[in-house]
């Protein structure tokens, strides 16, 4: 069973609908025991980092995620806010996050080279692959994905980055360390390419990325 973590915000049902469309059984849950039991876990959604972390802590999910999911080597996928949650901290609400991946979420600058930047970025942006990863199996370099974000991950170890996109700054659009993966873009809203990646995650077997 795949658990979709319900942290009392965001629209989680579109990820559940996408998994149902792909034929993967899943459960939207806020129960620590259900998340701990799941074979793999997805943390999706749009939200503020501060509120998301507060809710995860209040529900007792932060420890379950770090110890019984990520610590136990189960496949984990963060989407949008889910990428920020993995980092040490976020500039948004000065939130302290899970600290699984070393890094900090930064806000896009208001201008770049004197040109005003619209924040959040809303729309389809091109994603460039830095390395192969099972999550991107079948996805050509330069594929467009749907983004809605004001913050982006600034990683301490660039080796965690899997793909980049450009929005005034070149930023990490996807990261992975072993079975822990995350995308800044919305897989559940990115058409066929997003569905393919969700399917890749659901089929992911640990060890395959050690190619």
């Amino acid at each position, binding site marked *: 069973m795949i658990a979709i973590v319900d942290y009392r915000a*965001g*629209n989680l*049902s*579109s990820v559940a*609908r*996408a998994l*149902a*469309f792909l034929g993967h059984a899943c459960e939207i849950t806020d129960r620590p025991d259900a998340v701990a039991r799941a074979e793999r876990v997805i943390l999706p959604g*749009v*939200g503020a980092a501060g509120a998301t972390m507060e809710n995860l802590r209040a529900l007792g999910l932060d420890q379950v995620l770090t110890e019984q999911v990520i610590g136990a080597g189960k496949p984990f996928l963060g989407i949008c806010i889910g990428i920020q949650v993995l980092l040490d901290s976020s500039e948004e609400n000065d939130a302290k996050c899970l600290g699984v991946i070393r890094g900090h979420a930064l806000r896009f600058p208001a201008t770049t080279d004197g040109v*005003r930047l*619209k*924040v*959040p*970025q*809303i*729309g*389809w*942006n*091109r994603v460039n692959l830095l390395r*192969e990863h099972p999550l991107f*199996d*079948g*996805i*050509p370099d330069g*594929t*467009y994905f*749907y*983004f*809605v974000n004001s913050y982006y991950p600034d990683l301490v170890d660039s080796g965690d980055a899997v793909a980049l996109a*450009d*929005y*005034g700054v070149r930023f990490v659009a996807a990261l992975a360390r072993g079975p822990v993966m995350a995308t800044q873009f919305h897989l*559940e*809203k*990115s*058409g*066929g*390419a*997003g*569905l*393919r990646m969700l399917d890749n995650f659901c089929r992911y077997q640990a060890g395959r990325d050690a190619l």
Partner: protein
Amino acid sequence: MLSKRIIPCLDVRAGKVTKGVAFLDNVDVGDPVDMARYYYEQGADEIVFYDITASSERRAIMLDVVDRVARELFIPFTVGGGLRSLKDMRAVLLAGAEKVSIDSGAVREPGLIAEGAQAFGSQCVVLSMQVARRERSRQLPSGYEIVIDGGRLPTGLDAVEWARRGEELGAGELCVNSIDRDGTNLGYELELTRCIVDAVSIPVIASGGAGAPEHLLAVFNEAGADAAIVASIIHYGRYGLPELKEFLKEHGVEVREPYRPQRSSP
């Protein structure tokens, strides 16, 4: 950087699309789900549904359409028409829409924009504006006025002021529809679009008047729109979405190329 978005708009009345695609054999042209699927496969970047009846008893029919679309189309789609309360907005979002579009309801009760942004996030709230060209005056310094209730009722609100207010209240995007150009196929109202684009720092979706590929090129390159609504230009088969995108690409506009699956690595 972001590609320019092309957004087909489907007008729905009592669960049926009111403008059909006459040239399609294998699509139920009245069925919003079939039409949406067709445009999705053609490379639409988003889809907008306007429920043009939007009475409370018809709302359940629309929610069913939204639910069916959300089960099989995995690109963002927006639902608008007659949304008057947080409850209306929540129902549409829970049924699976990515965004809600509010229009007359927001003019009557501007707090609705802030409430929606607070409850669901700004990225969910599109402020849709019906705009008419007028003489410039002290009350209407931009020379554009907001009209409501399907364009029938003038409000005395200046369009640029309303756009700024909408942004302040928390709208994530603005959809600017020229009622002078709507249905004319004469091209988007470029001056209006430019005015709004220059006044706000959120994405602007241009609407009303697309009749030829050049109109899209102009609204992106000259007016600076982030996205453009298309309706009759594609509904009646004069142009297909791939053809429009190809034209834009040839003229240097970044548009999203559809995903073509790559063979799996061994």
